[in-house]
């Protein structure tokens, strides 16, 4: 077989996937993929297919997540867990710089940072969109974030299309899934059954080079259609949906809708939704000073618009009420994000619904506002 071109489709066996992982490590990548951990599917280092959650799936509902045995040997037979790839591209804690005390004041002693070379294995279509959305935040404005930029540039992306949708999924209505169309190096679709195989699609030169180093075979027409069939079944089995038409105008006109008071009655302002969200990007900084005051570090850490400190200016917090904080989160994600970055900041992954301890559902909240919208203020 000749050199693989972008768009070419081939078949990998589970052993081929094993070789792929091995090759990536040999190429100097740290392979990050799904693993069992803390009673959920989480993302961590994957050195072999043995590390993947074989035969594990999950059940999700608003405020509920449980692992379950699938009864097959699927390696990617789960829906999204609480982790997202922003953990690696936009880390929860990172040292920005370090200074030491000098007789005259201070001196910056450390201002570089290590940029790991990641290969992400098992990126879902919605998550790929989330990465693209964060690219806009960190790389396409007047300023570019050097930390995100170097990590992102180094990262190789292997998507795995969803063949089953979860109960809290709504990517189909957001136009972000369940199939990844572009922005990946290699895209996989897993087919289980009598034969266990992966339909692999080449997405980039880099992806082609990697695939050339492992064993694959040509894809038969029925193998391609079987894989595609499974992905479209996922699209039809979405647990939820969100109507995006006119969403910005709807929310801009309904800042004083009574529904905000109702949801605030339930919202604990815990910030779980912001931490599991793959696009939420807010951070704060911490000054960490040595006991003798001789050195001081600035760390950047994830923050949440649900905290009171987030909007604190002298005299008090701008968003003192839980209502205003929930409203900020939802209207930012779905409305103001569109003015800021040209698209909706939600990809329909459903994590905020699953991981909300009281089961608040973003799709329900939007529906409630839409059904009883206030006229233009």
């Amino acid at each position, binding site marked *: 077989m000749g050199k693989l071109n972008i768009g070419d489709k081939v078949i990998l066996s589970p052993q081929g996937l094993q070789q792929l992982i091995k090759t990536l490590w040999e190429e100097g990548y740290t392979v990050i993929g799904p693993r069992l951990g803390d009673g959920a599917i989480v993302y961590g280092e994957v050195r072999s297919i043995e590390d993947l959650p074989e035969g594990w799936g999950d059940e999700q509902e608003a405020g509920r997540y449980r692992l379950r045995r699938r009864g097959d040997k699927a390696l990617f037979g789960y829906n999204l867990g609480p982790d997202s790839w922003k953990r690696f591209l936009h880390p929860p804690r990172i040292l920005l710089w370090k200074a030491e005390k000098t007789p005259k*004041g201070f001196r910056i002693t450390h201002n570089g940072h*290590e940029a*790991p070379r990641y290969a992400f294995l098992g990126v879902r279509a919605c998550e790929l969109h989330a990465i693209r959305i964060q690219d806009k935040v960190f790389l396409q404005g007047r300023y570019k974030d*050097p930390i995100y930029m170097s990590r992102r540039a180094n990262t190789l992306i292997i998507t795995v299309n969803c063949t089953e949708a979860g109960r809290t999924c709504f990517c189909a209505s957001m136009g972000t899934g369940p199939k990844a169309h572009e922005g990946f190096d290699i895209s996989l679709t897993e087919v289980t059954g009598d034969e266990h195989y992966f339909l692999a699609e080449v997405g980039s030169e880099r992806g082609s080079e990697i695939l050339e180093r492992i064993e694959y075979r040509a894809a038969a027409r029925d193998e391609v259609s079987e894989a595609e069939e499974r992905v479209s079944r996922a699209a039809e089995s979405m647990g939820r949906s969100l109507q995006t038409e006119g969403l910005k105008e709807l929310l801009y006109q309904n800042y004083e809708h009574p529904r905000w008071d109702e949801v605030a009655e339930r919202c604990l302002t815990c910030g779980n939704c912001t931490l599991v969200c793959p696009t939420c990007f807010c951070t704060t900084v911490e*000054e960490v000073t040595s006991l003798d005051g001789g050195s001081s570090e600035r760390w950047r850490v994830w923050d949440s618009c649900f905290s009171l400190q987030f909007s604190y*200016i002298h005299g008090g917090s*701008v*968003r003192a009420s839980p209502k205003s904080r929930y409203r*900020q989160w939802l209207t930012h994600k779905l409305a*103001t994000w569109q003015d800021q970055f040209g698209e909706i900041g939600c990809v329909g992954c459903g994590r905020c619904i699953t991981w909300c301890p009281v089961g608040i559902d973003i799709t329900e909240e939007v529906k409630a506002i839409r059904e009883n919208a206030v006229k233009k203020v």
Partner: protein
Amino acid sequence: MAMLQESEPLEGTLLPEPFIVSKVRRETRDTFTLEMEPLNGGEKHFTPGQFNMIYVYGVGEVPISISGDPVEPSILKHTVRAVGTVTRAITSVKRGGMLGVRGPFGSGWPLKEAEGYDVVVVAGGLGLAPLRPAILHLLRNRERYGRVAILYGARTPMDMLYKKELERWRARFDIDLDVTVDHATGGWKGNVGVVTTLIPGLKIDVPNTVALVCGPEIMMRFTVRELNKLGIPDERIYISMERNMKCAVGFCGHCQFGPQFICRDGPVFRYDVIRPFFQVREV
């Protein structure tokens, strides 16, 4: 072990530059004006209305608007009120001490666009600090503008910033400066009342007037209302906003005000641009 490669150092926008405090002047009980010069020389050009992030070693960093003269970029001037941990630390730095500076960031007052117009400057309390560079520009280029009126309101005579300078400005015949206090104390012979009470008395050509407003949000709200009553439309009113800020470059998300990032799209906004959000509580 992951293969690691050392990436480029953080860009200047994330890294504080060392500045040496060359002068500290007490303005009021809790407010000080600091003059700073870059340790390694050089200049910091800025547009009136912009701000810097000021860092105190081991304590933290806050956004502070620039109060200096835009034609003197070798001296950085900031007027700071000690209200929190970082601002208390900044105001206790003595002459010769070091502070870190990132910036300047944000949008400026529309001084170019206002040429040929009458200009009304309305300041409340510490709100005079970000307007000072604009006033200095107006005075230096007086011939480019129509009438210039400055209205300044402070809580008490003791809370007034730049007192000597206010005296000098008041002595000029080519501008109208009016000052008022909310609460008079002994010996005060001037106006008493909030700054908005001075607006109806403005001697300006309303259809050709641009207004620059800075102060507490409640003051700006009522100022806009009075300016509107006089006939100045929202499109010719500019206000400077304040919000919590950590990064000043649009990454931390703290300063969002509806669709705007105050650090990047503001702090100076044309009022009609932010009006829908300015009218909602807790945005």
